[in-house]
């Protein structure tokens, strides 16, 4: 065996970890090689000294102090176990992480959908204020037949006001005759007040109308009436 090979086995040989043919070969080499023998003496010295090394000494009362501490721990354990609630569960990232990823994905998809295919945000579209409905400012054709019933073609605001005034006067006359409380009993008109009598009153209070002529925008004369 050569020196190089022996030196790789020397520490194991000196620490009694080599057996069989290898140990015999090392021994044979050492008997002939002074350099390797010197190196072996160093290893043997380390081995002997490591066994002589004094272990750092623990304090004499080590066991007593340790048992006292454990007694304290046991006391603490038994004292707190009954009263303290269970520890709050730790955040399990293995569970939370996929949930967070899924939420993020949903958010991304939702934003994508909101943006629309053209890239214009639906949100921005939704936030644009709708044009104000000012149709109530102008006269609109009546589509509701119930409301339109009774209205002829020459409907005018003046006539409606006049009709309202007449009804007001009728109601005043009725109150004057019968008193407010006596007008209704259980939903029906009392005494001689009937729809017909109201119609009569209405007709009696027909205001006089004045017919006048006015030139229209086309230049022709038109007849109009005013109350």
């Amino acid at each position: 065996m050569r020196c190089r090979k022996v030196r790789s086995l020397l520490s194991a040989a000196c620490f009694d970890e080599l057996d069989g043919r290898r140990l015999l070969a090392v021994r044979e080499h050492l008997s002939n090689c002074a350099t390797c023998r010197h190196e072996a003496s160093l290893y043997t010295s380390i081995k002997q000294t490591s066994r002589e090394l004094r272990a750092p000494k623990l304090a004499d009362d080590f066991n007593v102090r340790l048992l006292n501490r454990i007694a304290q721990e046991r006391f603490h354990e038994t004292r707190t176990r009954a009263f303290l609630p269970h520890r709050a569960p730790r955040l399990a990232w293995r569970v939370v992480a996929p949930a967070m990823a899924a939420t993020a994905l949903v958010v991304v998809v939702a934003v994508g959908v909101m943006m629309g295919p053209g890239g214009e945000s639906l949100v921005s579209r939704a936030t644009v204020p709708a044009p104000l409905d000012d149709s109530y400012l102008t006269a609109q054709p009546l589509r509701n037949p119930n409301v339109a019933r009774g209205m002829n073609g020459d409907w005018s605001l003046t006539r409606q006001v006049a009709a309202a005034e007449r009804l007001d006067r009728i109601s005043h006359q009725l109150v004057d005759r019968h008193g407010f409380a006596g007008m209704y009993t259980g939903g029906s008109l009392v005494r001689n007040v009937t729809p017909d009598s109201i119609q009569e009153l209405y007709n009696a209070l027909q205001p006089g109308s004045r017919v006048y002529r006015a030139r229209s925008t086309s230049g022709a004369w038109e007849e109009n009436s005013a109350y």
Partner: protein
Amino acid sequence: MTKPTEKETDFILMRAIQKGDMVAFDTMVSRYKDRLMNVIGRMLASHEEAEDIVQETFVRVYQHRQSFNFQHCLSTWIYTIGLNLARNELRKRKRFKFHEISEMKGNEKELAVEPKLPSRLPELLSEAVDTLPRKYREAFLLRDIDELPYEEVAKILNVPLGTVKSRVNRARLMLREKLQPRMEEQNALSKSTLLAVSGLL
């Protein structure tokens, strides 16, 4: 009737400890405290810190006694806990550098003097072991100082068997390289050593 092995008696002790037997716990502590201190005391320079770590190791053993796995050796478990605590302590030290108050007092004269070389071989070896890189030091301490089998060292360090053998061999080589000049300087190779080598022959 055959005498029970250390592993078997360890298991008997551990079963008793699990039932709350403090005498068994005291016996277990007495069995392992010096062996553990031998390793941890050489990993941490401060004796007090090492003692605290050993104490903490046994407290942890007690706290987690119910979770001990009887398929493993008790010694492996204890050493693993102790070494992990010692590593944590070393890591903390890296982050925060501590200074002793005595060091901070003005002793410039003492610092100016070259430190006296230890005159005895155990001191030389102890000093050399302290300078080894951590992974080699741990392997060397467990194998050559505490004389644990390679298989157990591999389990404690959680590395393959071949890695442990390589680390131990490398540690011995480094120690030899460190010690050789100083030993030759002080002519430390005694006759007994040379006789031991001749015994190898």
